[in-house]
């Protein structure tokens, strides 16, 4: 028993903390890029001209439709055929961002479509250009409505960041896998790994709830029974 504790203290935790750091470095930029891409693509999918809209639709269909592992394999193992070499870390961030962006674009699209047409007429009648109207009237409301969905996507992202180890980017899960294979203490190691993820998703959930609360409009969208 003490031997087990000692092993965890001296071997498992340092390695997992190292992996945890890598995971965070994967998750933060991916979430940020994912949200940015999602917002831009969502807007284009609703307000873009014909060809632009179709291109954005194809992007969303592709990146939502192909399993993320396959996408990562393509970025990491496939691109070298075109003489493009990405580090495991870069390939992972690229894969996560594009996949997350595709999902987010769907939430943003739904939110944009839910804004009442009347407000757009009102903005137009005041002399707003289309771009200004989207930026000042539509997006601020749509972002609030997309937030629960996009927040959900961030939670997913935290968990699917574990796929990075498939392209040799050794993050939390990767470190866990190595430790477990070496010691055969699968249960202990992966329980701890699980706790790390649970911690990240809980904190993210807490922050997202705070943000949502902060952006709440008095008297609006508060029809809670």
């Amino acid at each position, binding site marked *: 028993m003490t031997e087990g504790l000692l092993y965890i203290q001296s071997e498992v935790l340092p390695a997992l903390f190292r992996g945890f750091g890598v995971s965070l470095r994967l998750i933060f930029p991916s979430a940020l890029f994912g949200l940015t891409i999602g917002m831009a693509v969502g807007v284009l999918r609703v307000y873009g001209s014909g060809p632009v809209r179709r291109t954005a639709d194809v992007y969303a269909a592709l990146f939502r439709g192909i399993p993320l592992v396959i996408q990562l394999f393509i970025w990491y193992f496939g691109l070298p055929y075109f003489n493009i070499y990405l580090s495991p870390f870069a390939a992972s961030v690229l894969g996560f961002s594009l996949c997350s962006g595709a999902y987010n674009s769907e939430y943003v699209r739904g939110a944009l479509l839910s804004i009442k047409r*009347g407000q757009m007429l009102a903005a137009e009648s005041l002399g707003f250009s289309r771009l200004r109207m989207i930026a000042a009237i539509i997006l601020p409301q749509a972002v609030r409505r997309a937030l629960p969905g996009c927040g959900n996507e961030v939670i997913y992202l935290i968990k699917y960041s574990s796929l990075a180890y498939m392209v040799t980017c050794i993050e939390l899960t990767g470190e866990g896998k190595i430790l477990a294979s070496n010691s055969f203490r699968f249960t202990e190691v992966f329980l701890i790994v699980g706790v790390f993820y649970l911690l990240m998703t809980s904190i993210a959930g807490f922050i997202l709830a705070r943000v949502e609360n902060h952006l709440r409009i008095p008297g609006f969208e508060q029809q809670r029974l």
Partner: protein
Amino acid sequence: MTSPILRIENLSKRYGQREVLRGVSLEVDKGDLKILIGPSGAGKSTFLHCINFLVKPDQGLVRLDGREIHPEHKRELYAYRQKVGMIFQDFNLFDHLNAFENVRIGLTKVKGIGKEEAGARARLELERVGLKEHINKYPAQLSGGQKQRVSIARALAMDPEVMLLDEPTSALDPELIGEVHAVIRDLGTNGMTMIMATHQIGFASSLASEIIFMEDGLIVERGTPDKIFNDAEHSRTREFCSKITDLYGERG
């Protein structure tokens, strides 16, 4: 004779097979209050929407101060729309902004006026429509009458030359109609040029410079309130007016 401030010529609009407007023309002089009446589906709302090109007419022209508007020139269109305020049946306030910001945003984002100056103007307009105490409330915290007054303040802040009002009180509880009518009446006495669609006969007859009865996308008959309500030429006009008088009463 002064030339009309707004001249609308032969506006037509069809949705698929349905002709909603069939060549409607109207001249509006400065300070006029033209009231559009007619059954729903007559084309009143489409007509108002076509005047500032929120709905693109298939045919026809609009001239403001003698200058023809070319809606395909975006810059010209945006400038024109600032001069033509629009009030909607269901207010269409911006839900994420409070009353003050609703009025200010057009000034800052469209006219490019600094926040401070725009804020002062917004406050002034809200005071004018009697909403000084509600300046920081969000649309969802305001009554229908208050919302409509905010939307009037929002339009007025842009210094329009003409106001288009599309049944501004028909979504309101009867007891809230008066406060909105008072604001519109006030505008009229201050010389604002307006075209308004409404079913409020009493209000219309006390203020209108001309009543225009529309049906099936056409102007059937037009004239002074007295003529239209008491001595209309067309039987259809008489029939409609008597029905609507029963419904909405004499007083405005």
